[in-house]
């Protein structure tokens, strides 16, 4: 009899046990969407985004309005009548000094400056970085130190000496001269970038290639280059935006017919004669900023893909 009671109590305990397990927390912990943390994070992000987007919004709206509508003064209002006239004028007719062929001339000048400067500077800097990281030649450390110190010397100090050097070389005032200047000034930071990247690649890969009989150039072209897409994209973003946005070197080292787009934009916006055409100015500014913006959008995606591809190393 006693045994039976004991058995019974055991049975009930067994039945109760599963209940305890199922009633407790189970599976992923629920997260509230509208938590205090989310509100703070997203709130801040939205406010900051608006702060940066507002000027862009005003510029685009103004560039699409006619002058009469701008004179009304309501800068936040969208255009009543959309017109692309200011964009056409900025590109093809706006006057700087004597010539009135718009920003197009500056655009092509900038292209002719940026493309060779970017290619040459990246090519040289990547080889520099590769040599510094993998071939520990005599005086490599000294060379690298000098290069890095070069990155900290203010540009303004060097302008006049460079003018003289370019004049002696016979390339002062030409696009060639400006390309040389851009290439040289890109060198410290780009070499540092490439050196660190190549130094981060496994050293044994380099050793294996040497045992396989590959020399300086074969290792660079066949082994290192194909593994370095991400860093080349980073260098390209840096150089394209840097050189395209450059104003100082453009205005100092070239003649008016070779002025890059930024200098020409300044001349259009700051011209004192006649009426201030705000819509044309806005359109011209947007046109000038379009190239770096496009580079960010296109290569930003490439950049991420490059990193993902580089992540699975062999």
């Amino acid at each position: 009899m006693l045994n039976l009671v004991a058995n019974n109590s055991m049975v009930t305990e067994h039945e109760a046990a599963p209940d305890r397990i199922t009633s407790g927390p189970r599976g992923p912990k629920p997260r509230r969407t509208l938590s205090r943390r989310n509100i703070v994070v997203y709130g801040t992000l939205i406010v900051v985004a608006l702060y940066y987007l507002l000027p862009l919004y005003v510029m685009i709206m103004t560039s699409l309005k006619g002058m009469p509508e701008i004179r009304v003064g309501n800068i936040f209002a969208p255009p009543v009548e959309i017109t692309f006239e200011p964009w056409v004028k900025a590109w093809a007719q706006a006057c700087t000094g004597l010539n009135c062929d718009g920003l197009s001339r500056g655009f092509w000048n900038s292209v002719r400056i940026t493309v060779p400067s970017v290619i040459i500077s990246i090519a040289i800097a990547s080889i520099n970085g590769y040599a510094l990281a993998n071939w520990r030649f005599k005086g490599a450390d000294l060379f690298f130190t000098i290069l890095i110190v070069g990155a900290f010397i203010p540009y303004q100090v060097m302008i006049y000496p460079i003018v003289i050097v370019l004049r002696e070389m016979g390339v002062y005032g030409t696009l060639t001269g400006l390309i040389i200047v851009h290439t040289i000034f890109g060198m410290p930071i780009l070499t540092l970038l490439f050196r660190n990247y190549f130094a981060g690649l496994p050293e044994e890969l380099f050793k294996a290639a040497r045992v396989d009989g590959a020399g300086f150039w074969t290792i660079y072209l066949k082994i290192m280059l194909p593994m370095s897409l991400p860093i080349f994209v980073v260098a390209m973003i840096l150089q394209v935006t840097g050189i395209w946005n450059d104003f100082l070197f453009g205005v100092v080292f070239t003649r008016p017919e070779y002025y890059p787009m930024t200098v020409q934009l300044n001349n259009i916006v700051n011209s004192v004669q006649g009426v201030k055409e705000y819509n044309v100015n806005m359109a011209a500014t947007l046109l000038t900023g379009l190239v770096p913006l496009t580079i960010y959008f296109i290569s930003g995606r490439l950049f991420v893909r490059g990193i993902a591809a580089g992540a699975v190393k062999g």
Partner: protein
Amino acid sequence: MTSVSVRDLSLNFGAVTVLDKLNLDINHGEFLVLLGSSGCGKSTLLNCIAGLLDVSEGQIFIKDRNVTWEEPKDRGIGMVFQSYALYPQMSVEKNLSFGLQVARVPQAEIDKRVARAAEILQIQPLLRRKPAELSGGQRQRVAIGRALVRDVDVFLFDEPLSNLDAKLRSELRVEIKRLHQSLKNTMIYVTHDQIEALTLADRIAVMKGGVIQQLADPMTIYNAPENLFVAGFIGSPSMNFFRGEVAARDGRSFVQAGGVAFDVTAYPARTRLQPGQKVVLGLRPEHVKVDEAGAGDAAHQAVVDIEEPMGADNLLWLTLAGQSMSVRIAGQRRYKPGTAVRLSFDMGVASIFDAASENRL
């Protein structure tokens, strides 16, 4: 006939001496293992032989040819690295043929050699894949294949199995041994893993501080270590050491260590042990007998502290007269902690070192 010969090799990085007047002769077809803890100079020595590091002093001969100033590719060596070092953007086939293409070997010959290497290592199905699509074991096989296609006399392995998990490591270890038996090339193999060294090597060079401590076949290294460092480095768990003093009584020799007197009359000493001499007695865990002492044998009382059953064998940690020691016994013999046991020792396979010079006596 020597295959690789290192003469008076020194290497300094600035003021730091990594290798100091090192001499090493490796016979043709020999499997030599360079064994040591990290920073002992074993990988540096391998890199010097490969030609990846310039030596500060000395000479290197491969097949009786002075290669001290030769480029790595001209030395007749193939090398396998710890991180595999496969070219990530190339397929397995390209990885294997890259060196041959650089050397402008005719395409027909390249195809032949790649096919042979792929067959030997059984990686034919992987030839089209990229290294990223391979497992660790497959990658290391390809890395070995890259050395194989070069058709060289000397293979250099720089810790090739250290990046693999335990199971793969033991599998590939057997494969490397099989490869050596069929190819009969000279192989120099760097590792810090003593199991790899003992299982693979014809001879082991145990290194410490850029100096070879002992160069001998695995069994000699294990059973008759030349000095205290080698004795402590080889073997897991480590050899039991007892510091003491030699004493002589009734025509028998003893090592008096703490409260224990070990009878070492049976020890095959190179020179007679002098009474009063300070020595270190080394006993491997498997050379201690537990509760097996016969009636006439000297036996010592000890207490079991911890038991570590490992399946095939059972490791006991004991306290013998205040000193901790480990003993390996058969797996089915179990002891509870606290049990008192009787120990007897096989002095014929013990090691005795001079306490001051740390060399074998």
